């Protein structure tokens, strides 16, 4: 079973369809993306070049086994992420990216995702982590788009109106 993303006019994924392997075999009986694209154009009335194959097992630039563990052969990783509705198709980098979470974030091509302009959030201290483990606190870092900072927040007692 193969999966193809339907790309909209502004480069966003608008649908993901499955395709039988037999429907994308070329004359040499080898799976060929362009054959699948032609099949989808004929049956779904959308241009062949706007169907892009996507890998169900690829996420964050890595290829995973069915049990969720990382595959030993990462050359199988294909186009960054398994496409979903709303994902961005980045043709220049040949990958699908999730929706940009904040306007200031920039592409992280290595991990097929987005990162803040100041990098990842700081690690929790050992004390904060032990409090999380003991369920007395829920320390997390939330991105503050206004201040462009990572803010440490305790989500133990979340205000329902927050």
């Amino acid at each position: 079973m193969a999966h193809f993303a339907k790309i909209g006019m502004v480069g966003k994924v608008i649908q993901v369809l499955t395709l039988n392997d037999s429907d994308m075999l070329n004359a040499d009986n080898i799976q060929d993306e362009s054959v699948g694209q032609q099949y989808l154009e004929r049956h779904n009335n959308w241009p062949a070049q706007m169907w892009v194959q996507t890998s169900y097992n690829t996420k964050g630039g890595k290829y995973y086994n069915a049990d969720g563990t990382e595959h030993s052969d990462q050359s199988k990783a294909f186009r960054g992420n398994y496409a979903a509705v709303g994902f961005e198709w980045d043709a220049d980098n040949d990958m699908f990216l999730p929706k940009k979470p904040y306007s200031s974030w920039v592409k992280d091509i290595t991990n097929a995702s987005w990162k803040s302009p100041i990098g990842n959030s700081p690690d929790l201290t050992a004390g904060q982590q032990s409090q999380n483990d003991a369920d007395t606190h829920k320390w997390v870092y939330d991105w503050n788009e206004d201040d462009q900072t990572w803010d440490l927040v305790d989500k133990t007692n979340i205000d329902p109106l927050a």
Partner: protein
Amino acid sequence: MKKVVLSEQAFIAGYVKMPKGFEIDLDKLSIDISQSTNSELPFSRTWDMLNTYVIEHTNLEHQIRLVNKNCWGDIYKPNQQTSPLLNIDPVDLKNSPDYTLLYGIKTDNCFLRIYYDDNRRAGRSWDIQLTDNMFIIFPSTNMYYIKNEQKENSNVVLTITYDYL
């Protein structure tokens, strides 16, 4: 202070922007409507392209997942104004649609008025001109009428009703 929206009357309007070479064939739809002998419009590739576009893009842009209910076409004579239209059955809401889509196929001064209530300010209305290849989606609980405001040409309008998931 926080605002929680429990329900909304959303009117969604836009043009069907298809890739080059895959544009909606308005002539085909117009012919299908003029030749349909009953109220139901026959299935066609063109109709399917339009319907798929609407379903996929309302899901993508507004997270509204539509499911088809009914479909029909109407031809409005010059200067014709419909009586107020309502696509729900007030005594059978269970089998009534959630949303109504109007799509302009052949339009010339085709105007739409949709009625809505704004809390105690009942009976307000919103006017918009429907043009070729333009669609408007609104809740089927809203009454509306269509007016052909010129004396030369007929207007052809497609209606599709939907439920949402």
